[in-house]
């Protein structure tokens, strides 16, 4: 079974790499298999990791004390109304609950973690060149994103400095992305040449 698994993985990998020549039926087949398998994976994972432990098992084991779980269960089932032309407006009820929860959590979590904590980390004593560059860089980047004032004169100059900081951040992010993709490629090559063809020791 292990050998069959390696052959299957290797052949599907080659199907994907056939795209390097040009778009072809083998690549399309592997691509569709990937989408189908991934969708099926998430369905089973959601059933076993979310619905069974949080809804079905508690209701089955202790319905008397956990009957209130029928509320999220009912709201969840209302999602199926999305496929009804006449009753699809009922989808708004579960959606509004999820959106409201998400919005409420976003307000508090983002303000504390992504605004207050980041501002706190930036408010450094300006006693070294690096601290000045860091605090000035954050300020300049924020000025670039501030569209209520026209980017002219002093504001324009600071916004231009903000663009330089952004370019460096994007360059670093792009560099890491390239390295991540290449390390994945190395992993695939090790699998093909080592596990499959046994050419690597």
């Amino acid at each position, binding site marked *: 079974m292990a050998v069959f698994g390696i052959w299957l993985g290797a052949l599907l990998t080659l199907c994907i790499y056939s795209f390097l020549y040009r778009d072809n039926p083998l690549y399309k087949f592997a691509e569709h298999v*990937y*989408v189908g*398998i991934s969708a099926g994976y998430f369905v089973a994972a959601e059933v076993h990791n979310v619905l069974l432990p949080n809804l079905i098992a508690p209701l089955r084991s202790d319905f008397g004390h956990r009957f209130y779980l029928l509320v999220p269960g009912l709201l969840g089932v209302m999602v199926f109304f999305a496929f009804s032309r006449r009753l699809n407006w009922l989808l708004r009820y579960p959606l509004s609950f999820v959106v*409201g929860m998400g919005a*409420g959590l976003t307000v508090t979590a983002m303000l504390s973690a992504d605004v207050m904590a980041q501002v706190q980390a930036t408010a450094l004593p300006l006693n070294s060149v690096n601290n000045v560059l860091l605090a000035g860089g954050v300020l300049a980047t924020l000025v670039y994103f501030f569209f209520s004032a026209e980017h002219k004169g002093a504001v324009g100059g600071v916004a231009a400095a903000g663009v330089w900081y952004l370019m460096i951040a994007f360059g670093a992010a792009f*560099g890491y992305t390239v*390295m991540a993709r290449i390390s994945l490629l190395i992993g695939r090559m090790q699998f093909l040449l080592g596990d499959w063809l046994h050419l690597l020791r």
Partner: protein
Amino acid sequence: MKKTVPLIITFLAGLYMIVAYFVPHPAVANSAQQMQGWEIIIVAFTLVLGIGNLVQVHYGKVRGRRPGWFHSAALLACLAVMAAIGTVWGVAEGTVYYWLYDNVMAPLSAAMFSLLAFFIASAAYRAFRARNKEATLLLLAAVVIMIGRVPLGPWLWAKLPWVGGHWPHALDQLTQWVMDVPNTAGQRGIKIGAALGAVSMALRMLLGIERSYLTTGGGS
């Protein structure tokens, strides 16, 4: 009725989450946690929407024998098999579901994303052409990170005549500085800006100003 009640639900659910953040009473904290559990359950059900859409599109292709119907049939078969096997026999290690993940999904995922390594080279050429000051900064930052963060970079640097001998750790230090100072400043600015945008959007939703998520179905 069709829009007013959902707007009230959105407002109350969001308001309760904000109140729970500031009120440390166990009763409030526990009920807020309970509500987050409910949200997870409802979100799990919403997966049906995505899967339903996928099935609708590909089933239509198979039924109408449209070009590429065979691939759509393969997609639907894989979806059904994986979902059924996982749901009926479990998702633990040693199951068929786990075997399919290990030998089909993981290799396909790694191969698909590694394919980008080839195309990213041409993208890099287009992005990194030093046409102006900004593009030059992008190029320099990416080159410093790519060379400085792999073992080959410092090894090559040490072999450079004079520079490598006098400052053997200069490349490491430069890479670390780029990451710690200008990159952190840029990322932090983006993070603060994005968070402020997200908070303002969340407030618009809670107050019923932003209603685009209620466009499903008719009614008022």
